């Protein structure tokens, strides 16, 4: 019964930190919109058993280089976003 968490704010907002409090093993976190700015912070605090993703288009739009995300965060395009939604039982959008 896994959950997809989306984050659409930078790490100066509480969206990421609040999400990290309740994300659990088997869940996924997807960074979208301004949430992609939080990718470096998210790399530094990986969670046990939580898959991390960032939306490719939003990285590109903001001049962020997907290749610097190390291996911990995978990029997905909009189709991948839809797949993630379908693969999880519910979504929680943190903003």
């Amino acid at each position: 019964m896994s959950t997809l968490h989306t984050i659409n704010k930078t790490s100066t907002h509480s969206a990421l930190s609040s999400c990290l409090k309740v994300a659990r093993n088997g869940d996924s976190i997807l960074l979208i919109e301004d949430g992609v700015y939080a990718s470096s912070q998210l790399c530094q605090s990986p969670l046990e058993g939580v898959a991390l993703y960032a939306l490719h288009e939003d990285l590109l739009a903001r001049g962020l280089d997907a290749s610097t995300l190390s291996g911990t965060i995978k990029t997905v395009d909009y189709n991948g976003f839809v797949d993630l939604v379908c693969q999880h039982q519910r979504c929680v959008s943190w903003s």
Partner: protein
Amino acid sequence: MSTNTAKTITFITRSTPYGHGQAKACLDMVLSAAVFEQKINFIFMDDGVWQLKKGQAPSHIDAKDLSAAFTALPLYEVNDLYVNANDLQERGLNCEELVVPVHSVQANTIAELIRESDVVFTL
């Protein structure tokens, strides 16, 4: 009643009560969902815990008192209110200073509530 088809809907509110529409919007969604006789969890996290503080007098800023509506939630059969204990503590608040009785819980309990939900709304 249609309890066998009722879904568990969890609302997570994380915004301060005034100055924007988010807290009010979340409350309206809770009240609307309650009309459809769904199982509802109402969770206050982050700055959302400020919505519950006693002694609000928003008439001074020409706003309606949101906290007054929380005391009417039992009539809507919304009885499961939760606050994240750490968020309460970080803001120097305790349960006695809140307008309604709530379950003060750890993040682990909130994670479980999310897992048991069909739908989760955050505002």
